């Protein structure tokens, strides 16, 4: 039996799952065990299409979970939307987890029946940009790539013939490649608001590359892991002090980098230029609504103020759609980057929303998606 707060090293007992998993297959095995024992009705997995493409599917088939894509840096989807209204388990980067929690605050998700296995995340990359980066920076045919990993500040690609090429993330990002912009300034790298927080940071020695560091964050996490151990899907042992220290050191380094990027991206705008700035940023908007559709913290559905107050026939200098969304998301935007990804005219929507939300969230010392104890501050203010 594990306890809340335990920091463990674990892996899947099935040798095949362990060898296919990026870090010993523990996450896959925990999710499969939850399904096997009826803890949940379905599991969200990434169905792998190729190295750069996977699509989220919800499955009730244990074998499909065991065969799923695992963690893929070049598949920047947010899984929170897939959790709504279902009794499921899901893996999740910090932004996936934060999306689910913000939805739970707005009654979009029932957290009692949703299990989240969090994955450490240093950032994700856009698949098309990644392909271009492979050709230009790595001089590698994207079709030859068999795997990738981020380690010690470097992005490493492994080719089918076993060759590895590593380039520092700083160098890649200076050249306009590497992680998506929102990932660079993200300030949550270990998903401590998930039920389990897993990753390869702190996995050292003989198990490096074949085991997962797993922290039990709450009672649900304990239930998940106990269940997986009971059915014999995973084995765990306590992490030693050195492993814990290394995990913390990697996290601190990543957070420091995130803060530096934040300073670079969010340069100040003089008060008198703010309106012009926001008007200009959204001037090319074609009102497709995709940014709302993909937003993992938006639970309004069809009856939303941003669309009700907006009409294409309006002649306002800035559309009500954006005005309402800027305000609405000021207490909930987690900076996941989905809106920027899908914007058909390449408006850096996430950065604009984060820029707007950041001062308000800072002022109230409020970080969205981190816990359920604090309600959205706009809701509190309106009451």
């Amino acid at each position, binding site marked *: 039996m594990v306890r809340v707060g335990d920091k463990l090293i674990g892996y899947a007992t099935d040798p095949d799952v362990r060898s296919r998993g990026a870090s010993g297959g523990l996450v896959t095995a925990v999710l499969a065990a939850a399904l096997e024992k009826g803890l949940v009705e*379905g599991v969200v997995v990434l169905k792998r299409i190729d190295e750069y493409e996977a699509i989220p599917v919800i499955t009730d088939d244990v074998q499909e979970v065991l065969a799923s894509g695992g963690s893929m840096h070049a598949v920047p989807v947010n899984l929170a939307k897939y959790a709504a209204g279902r009794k499921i388990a899901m893996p999740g980067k910090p932004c996936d987890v934060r999306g689910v929690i913000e939805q739970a605050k707005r009654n979009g998700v029932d957290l009692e029946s949703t299990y989240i296995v969090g994955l450490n995340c240093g950032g994700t990359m856009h698949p098309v940009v990644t392909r271009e980066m492979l050709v230009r920076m790595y001089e590698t045919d994207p079709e030859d790539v068999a795997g990738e990993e981020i380690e010690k500040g470097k992005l490493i690609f492994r080719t089918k013939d076993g060759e590895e090429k590593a380039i520092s993330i700083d160098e890649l990002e200076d050249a306009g490649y590497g992680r998506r912009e929102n990932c660079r300034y993200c300030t949550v790298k270990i998903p401590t608001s998930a039920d389990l927080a897993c990753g390869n940071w702190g996995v050292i020695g003989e198990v490096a590359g074949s085991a997962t560091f797993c922290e039990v964050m709450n009672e649900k996490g304990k239930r998940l892991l106990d269940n997986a151990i009971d059915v014999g899907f995973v084995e765990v042992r306590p992490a030693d002090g050195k492993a814990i220290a290394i995990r913390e050191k990697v996290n601190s380094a990543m957070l420091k980098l995130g803060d530096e990027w934040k300073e670079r991206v969010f340069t100040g705008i003089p008060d008198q230029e703010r309106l012009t700035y926001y008007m200009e940023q959204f001037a090319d908007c074609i009102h497709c609504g995709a940014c709302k559709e993909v937003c993992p913290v938006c639970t309004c559905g069809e009856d939303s103020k941003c669309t009700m107050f907006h009409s294409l026939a309006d002649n306002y200098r800035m559309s009500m759609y954006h005005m309402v969304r800027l305000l609405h998301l000021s207490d909930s935007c987690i900076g996941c980057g989905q809106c920027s990804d899908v*914007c058909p*005219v390449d408006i850096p929507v996430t950065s604009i929303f984060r820029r707007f939300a950041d001062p308000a969230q800072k002022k109230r010392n409020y970080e969205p998606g981190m816990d359920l104890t604090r309600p959205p501050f706009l809701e509190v203010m309106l009451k």
Partner: protein
Amino acid sequence: MKESIYTTVCPGCSIGCGLYIRESDKGAVSVDFLKSSPVNLGKLCRFGMRLPHYYSRLVSGKAEGQDCGTEDAVRAAASRLKGAGKIAMLSVGNTTCEEHIAFMKLAETLGTVVHTGIPVYAQLPPECHPHLEGMPFIDIENAEKIVLFIDPYVQYPLLVRRLLAAKRNGAYIISAGRTELHLAHENRKLSPEQCAELDLDSGSLIITDVHPHTDPCHIQQLLNIALDTGARLQVMKPFVNSEGADRLAKSRAGMMGISQIMSGIERGDIRTLVLLDSDPVELMPDTSRAVEVLKKLEDLIVISSRDSPVNAIADVVIATEPLYRKKGTFINAEGKLQENSGQGIDGIDAISMLSRELGADGFDHRQVHGYLHERMIETLASENRKPEYCRMECGTVPAQQNGACTLEYMYNPFMWFSQPDDNGFVLLDRGMVKSLRLKKGGTVRLDSEKGSMDMRYKVEKVPEGTILTGRKLPIATATVTKIKAEGC
């Protein structure tokens, strides 16, 4: 909890945006983002985001007013086609290359050709046709000067990001369209012949489109400009596989536009019309008139993957699977071959069955796909072509009549299909608002010979006396309709 996921392209226009369609076991359809698609990086416009509505209109087979299955519909169609004369066949490119080829084989059996509905090709010398074929969209981003004869925000929204990238790369952008574009450095009311004033050269790019109602003079003039200056032409097209349908055409010499087909029906030169995923009721500016004309046909046979207005007046409807489920390929406006992940072959099988009923050989997907490879795969990756045609004598594009008030339909690929949208308004200029004493938030009354309607309006910088609409309005008689406007 089971669902099927299809990798497909958006049927909205010829850009060919990649996306996923999710289909639940109860038939509900939703869209997901295919971020690895190099054409659009998973991004979609308003039409793409509303595809579940587009795909919600399921088609069912019918013959002689009765619902029926495919076999009965095919037999009924064959019975009408046997011995029928004065047949016309239309496929504008709303389906896969493979189905279009199958339709062309059927046309051979019937001793006719498949028309693609765009009249420009028939009116240009054949040596010009390759210059209307697409070029890689990335070339837009690398152009030095770009002249736009389209409104990309409304007509081809996924071009906007390419144009903005071009602008970041230093391109100078001139809009020659009817509305002022935010992304343009310069908005000028230019006719094609005035392009000569723009100092274009081989680093320049002209973006226009061809659709069923394009004035051939417009394209002739732009081809002349390209010849004189070395500027390149990117010609956008309205339908998902317009480029494929165009490239597959054996000869464009006798190719009829949709308007010509409708005139042929009115004159009695066409008595039987066979349509493959092409609806003249949607495509003609005057909907009610189009229905009247089609009712004059002796035989109206529709092969369709979706319910559309023409189905209601067809004698026979052969229903096929929705586009995203079809096994097959498309060619987008940059000449890129794209493939559906679906494995549906109902459409090809139905056309093959019809062919056999008419006494000819049948065919399967493998055969028609093989024909596609034979015909054109090697031509897809075409190099930047140097103009190899002679300068054309051409008329002038009709100028705007000063003083007269006209309603202009901005031919918009996305609004033909009764999509729920909030673009139910017209654009007019501030001068007209003042002269008609229109009230803020009010409506403008538009009168044409077809009737009267009140519309909300938005103030834009549009040419004096022009009222623009992004949606086909019931009072329109053509793409440009003379109207009277008054405040109400």
